[in-house]
């Protein structure tokens, strides 16, 4: 099972590299994954604009894309579906990026974007604004303030002069997240019955309100670039902070930057779409399971893979029971969980 003829350079000239660790299959080469992802991005975004509650035939869709034909179709494709598909893609990318960074920083495979507790802060802030009857702008603002408050609390507990105590980040985050959960329950209990459905809808998270994913995309690009620049330091951090220091890594700086990126990515994703689970925890593992653990591949692959997963899930969510939308988190799990379980089963 071990390579009989060692490849001179990994991934060059060979599409597949067999390792004993993956007896059921082979490590898919960098190039194959890259091509698949690069084709996948425009493909899923385009496919997402075909489907929806307003049926548009393939011919009409093509005309609409080109800016011809029925103006209603043009309107639906260009101002509703395309921005929403882009928002889904960017949100998925942000969640997966936060997942990669936190799993590495906390050295915990179960870490996801919500372990920091910032999404709980967004929920509490947003619900408070709704309870006070404020406008959507203030709901977003209060959400942001809630996230900032939680982040400040977690940092206050975990930042030490000598560097980050990463276990305190985890414990403080989990503790504050459950406190936020309790607050959310309290607000839901004391709110008037008329407001509760709107609150629940907002809490569950969906992408239907997404109109302008531009700022979100800019954030994703910047954060991904920072994470990519940190790639070798992140690789070293998988050995633990002491070993990373011994290998010459500025551990404190790397942790601070990566935590900051993960926090911003999570807050941006939660403000855009609510707390969508599964993407952040599962997408990085999918790539690790097919052999991509080094951050030079793991970071970009996860960002794109998370984006593709959430775009497909959102398309399914708003199509299967149209005109009713099922929560995107349900679709994410239905699509993602079987893939993850299959990969776990075939790797040893």
């Amino acid at each position, binding site marked *: 099972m071990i390579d009989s003829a060692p490849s001179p350079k*990994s991934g060059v000239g060979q599409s597949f590299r067999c390792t*004993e660790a993956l007896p059921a299959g082979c490590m898919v080469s960098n190039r194959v994954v890259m091509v698949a992802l690069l084709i996948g991005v425009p493909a899923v975004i385009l496919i997402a604009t075909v489907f929806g509650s307003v049926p548009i035939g393939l011919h009409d869709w093509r005309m609409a894309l080109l800016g011809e034909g029925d103006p209603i179709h043009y309107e639906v494709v260009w101002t509703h579906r395309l921005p929403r598909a882009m928002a889904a893609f960017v949100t998925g990318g942000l969640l997966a990026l936060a997942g990669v960074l936190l799993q590495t920083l906390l050295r915990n495979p179960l870490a996801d974007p919500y372990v920091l507790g910032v999404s709980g802060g967004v929920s509490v802030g947003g619900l408070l604004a709704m309870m006070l009857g404020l406008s959507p702008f203030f709901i977003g603002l209060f959400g942001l303030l809630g996230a900032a408050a939680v982040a400040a609390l977690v940092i206050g507990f975990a930042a030490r002069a000598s560097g980050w105590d990463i276990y305190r980040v985890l414990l403080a985050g989990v503790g504050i997240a459950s406190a936020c959960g309790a607050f959310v329950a309290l607000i839901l209990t004391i709110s008037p019955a008329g407001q509760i459905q709107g609150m629940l809808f907002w809490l569950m998270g969906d992408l239907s309100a997404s109109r302008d994913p531009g700022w979100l995309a800019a954030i994703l690009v910047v954060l991904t670039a920072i994470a990519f620049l940190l790639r070798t330091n992140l690789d070293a951090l998988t050995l633990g902070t002491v070993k990373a220091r011994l*290998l010459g890594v500025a551990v404190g700086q790397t942790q601070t930057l990566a935590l900051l990126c993960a926090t911003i990515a999570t807050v941006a994703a939660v403000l855009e779409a609510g707390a969508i689970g599964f993407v952040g925890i599962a997408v990085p593992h999918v790539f690790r399971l097919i052999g991509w653990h080094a951050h030079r591949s793991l970071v970009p692959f996860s960002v794109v893979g998370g984006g593709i997963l959430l775009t497909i899930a959102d398309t399914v969510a708003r199509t299967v029971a149209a005109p009713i939308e099922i929560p995107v988190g349900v679709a994410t799990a239905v699509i993602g969980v079987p893939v993850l379980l299959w990969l776990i089963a075939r790797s040893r």
Partner: protein
Amino acid sequence: MTLDVHQLSLAVGARILVQPTSWTIGPKECWAILGPNGAGKTMLLHALAGIDLAHAGEVRLGGVNIQTWQRRDLAQRIGLLLQDESPEYWGTVQDYVALARLPHRGRYAKDAAENDPSVTASLAALRLTDLASRRFRTLSGGERQRARIAQLLAQTPEILLLDEPLNHLDLAQEIHVMTLLAAHTAHGGSVVCTLHDPVYALRYCSHALMMYDAGRLELGPVTQVVTRSAVEQLYGCRLDWPGLDADFGPHFR
């Protein structure tokens, strides 16, 4: 390069592990650190590597306080094998060993260091070539220990600090690793390792440092320091082992 230990002292709370002591670890020297469990061997090694600040005095490398060195420059010259590490690593053995090239790579160098000659060489030195493409987490305890030592060697530091390098190894691998360390010193490098078997210290090391109660250190050439009576006093037990008799020592050398 020479590691100068200047009036170093270590303490945990009120317990003194090392009383102020000065000594020098030079090229071509292999130092064994001996002492009972909890004597502070690990802390001492960490202090020598410059990652433990809880001490007075200083450690100087090339005449410069180790704390003022850039970590990256230091990593090119001093490597430390930790006593215990998590087996959680997703990549292959080769990927794992290649991480040691980090301090040597330029900022814009190509990322993959898997084919670096020192990676290949240290895999071969630890007899891991056949396991190179296995996943690190599937290794046995002894194989993992060898991969960790291979990682340290691939870092190519002049000064090797090793915290219990013989953990989990079988007898043949123990001897093999000690031979590798002796070869490193023979080529002009320095080695400091914690050991539990004084016979290995006598056979492979040039110097020894024994950590007694209350932070008292005995150090010097191994045949002068590691005597039967000293070892009996160090561990607080009587030994019936001819290998430790002073007049038997030369047979091991």
